[in-house]
């Protein structure tokens, strides 16, 4: 049971809740859990070049009972699905899930019977990251968005480059010729 369920909705407790959410968002401890190649990017995110500890998430816990954040890095097979469900159920209650990569989010290229087409089939997902595999910066970007979501429940994610893309364009074809 989360602390909010005990607290109620008074003026004092909403302020306390804000404080608690601020603390939670700045110490998201992920579960040390890897499935496929996205896990390599997740490990490199915790290395010194990208340094996930700048956001308070460097403590990859080995036990789900000490973790707040479940990053699902890689494709999830149906054989593995009950295990990840059990891991998710063992995590204490204010918990969040990031589906990292195309395979964890939607199945990606694996149009087969043996792959779960999106981990949201079995556990609720808060943030999806596209990419195959995503860059470490994409994981950091998702983590920042998740932190903003935890601090403010009404936070709406906006993709700044959607609509009128303005960044530098690269034509692969012209480089080849």
């Amino acid at each position, binding site marked *: 049971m989360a602390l909010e369920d005990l607290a109620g909705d008074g003026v004092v407790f909403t302020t306390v809740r804000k404080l608690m959410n601020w603390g939670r968002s700045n110490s998201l401890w992920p579960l040390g859990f890897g499935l496929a190649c996205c896990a390599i990017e997740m490990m490199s995110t915790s290395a010194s070049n990208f340094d996930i500890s700048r956001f308070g998430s460097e403590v990859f816990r080995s036990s789900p009972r000490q973790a707040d954040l479940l990053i699902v890095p890689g494709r999830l097979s149906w054989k593995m699905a009950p295990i990840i469900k059990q891991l998710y159920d063992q995590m204490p209650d204010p918990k969040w899930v990031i589906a990292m990569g195309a395979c964890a989010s939607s199945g990606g*290229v694996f149009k087969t019977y043996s792959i779960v087409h999106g981990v*949201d089939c079995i556990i609720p997902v808060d943030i999806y*990251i596209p990419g195959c595999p*995503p860059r470490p910066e*994409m994981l*950091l970007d*998702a983590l920042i968005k998740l932190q903003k979501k935890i601090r403010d429940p009404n936070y709406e994610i906006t993709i700044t480059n959607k609509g009128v893309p303005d960044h530098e*364009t*690269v034509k692969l*074809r012209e480089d080849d010729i």
Partner: protein
Amino acid sequence: MSEKKAVRLNPIEILRGLSLTLREFARFFGGGKVTLEYPEVRPELAPRFRGMHRLERYKEGPYKGLERCVGCSLCAAACPPAAITVVAEDNPVNPAEWKSPGERYAVVYEIDYLKCIFCGMCVEACPHDAIVMKHDFELADDSRAPGFNKFIYSKDDLLDRVYEGPDEPEFKIGKGS
């Protein structure tokens, strides 16, 4: 049995190996900083980095302002996870109302970014250089429920704006056409 040699610890080799460790140690603690402060500093991407797509327009020549895409669906055929949906329609009879210089244009062009693996096959397959890949990668979002799927980018999200710069005197036919 004479080929079997006893493995001895060579102190010179150990010192040589440790010198590399010490050199790296001195590099880090002598002021060298490897951490990229990501949200403030964007990483230096390779020039051919494959990020979010863009649908191009003709920037010069008699077709200036028209869409390059003629709705041939070759990108959808080349896409390994089948993330691209193209629905083509005939251009209007009046040439002034043409959307693209070909017979047809793409009336629906959608990319599902949760399936996309950013392989660049669509860019290679396109005979008119209509689709290119840019350097935008911050695409993490929080919903892919039916009806609220934020990851299916429509043509409005992908299409380039109308080009308003100066016209080039020579019209060059695209490399692939």
